[in-house]
């Protein structure tokens, strides 16, 4: 299996899961935002799929760059530049390393550089941060992802659209945290972390 294949499998699988859960993501975003996170991601992953389907990638950096650029262009909203920055940052790191831990850490840095959210602000960072830490320790499991996702429920949003709601954002799962949970569940399932 060549070095880009499992990463392509991951993204392909992620695409399917997003398309399948479009309405769920819109529903989460309706509660504390503008109800479009599913539609945004759906549009984005379909554009990614179109770009990488049939294309040949010898280098991971090229794959990630294409994914990142498509997401930036097509997702729109806040999550477009965030996911886009993650993959563009991973593309840069992939010039030096193929290590999942290194790459995913670069992805997190991309998200944080773009959105300037700290953990605890009820955003996708609240999934990315613990997940990347676990990947670095070699201890990522589904329950790490589930717990991280669940933890956003009791947080009060202080970044993103949900922050307009203040206290009223409490009690709802963050939609970007949910799409990020899908990203990492499919990462586990695609065996990217296996050696």
């Amino acid at each position, binding site marked *: 299996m060549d070095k880009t294949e499992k990463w392509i499998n991951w993204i392909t699988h992620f695409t399917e899961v997003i398309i399948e859960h479009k309405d769920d993501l819109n529903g989460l975003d309706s509660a504390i*935002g*503008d*109800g*479009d996170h599913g539609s945004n991601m759906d549009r984005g992953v379909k554009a990614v799929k179109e770009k990488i389907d049939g294309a040949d990638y010898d280098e991971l950096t090229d794959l990630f760059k294409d994914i990142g650029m498509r997401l930036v262009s097509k997702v729109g909203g806040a999550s477009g530049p965030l996911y886009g920055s993650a993959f563009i940052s991973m593309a840069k790191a992939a010039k030096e390393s193929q290590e999942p831990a290194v790459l995913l850490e670069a992805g997190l840095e991309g998200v944080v550089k773009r959105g300037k959210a700290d953990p605890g602000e009820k955003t996708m960072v609240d999934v990315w941060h613990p997940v990347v830490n676990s990947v670095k320790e070699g201890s990522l499991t589904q329950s790490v992802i589930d717990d991280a996702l669940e933890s956003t429920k009791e947080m009060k949003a202080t970044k993103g*659209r949900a922050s*307009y*709601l*203040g206290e*009223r954002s409490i009690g709802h799962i963050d939609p970007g945290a949910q799409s990020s949970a899908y990203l990492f569940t499919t990462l586990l399932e695609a065996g990217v972390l296996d050696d």
Partner: protein
Amino acid sequence: MTKSTGILLVSHVKEVAEGLTRLLDQVAGDVTIKTAGGSEDGGIGTSFDLIAETLESFEEKTIFCFFDLGSAQMNLEMAIETSDKDVQLMKTAFIEGAYTGASLLQAEVDPDEISRQLKKLVIKD
């Protein structure tokens, strides 16, 4: 009318007020949002008559009013004086204040608490 407070958007430009309504409807589908945009003849400006009529057309007793530029304010104040509604003139940034107000009304936050939260966005005097 599914909330007790409605929102009136007063802009010098009809398209701005109506476009903003589309943005607010996304986050506040249950809040009544009405507009009084542009001058009487469809040009750029504000119209006392249009504002006064629109205010009266609300079923809600309390109305949060947002406006773009100062020259809308005097027309609005006259309309408020002639109205029997409880109208709160919000001297916030127009779009940002209206967005915040609509989101919080949708989430059933108490109107007094919303007024307090909107203070952070006040930029008009």
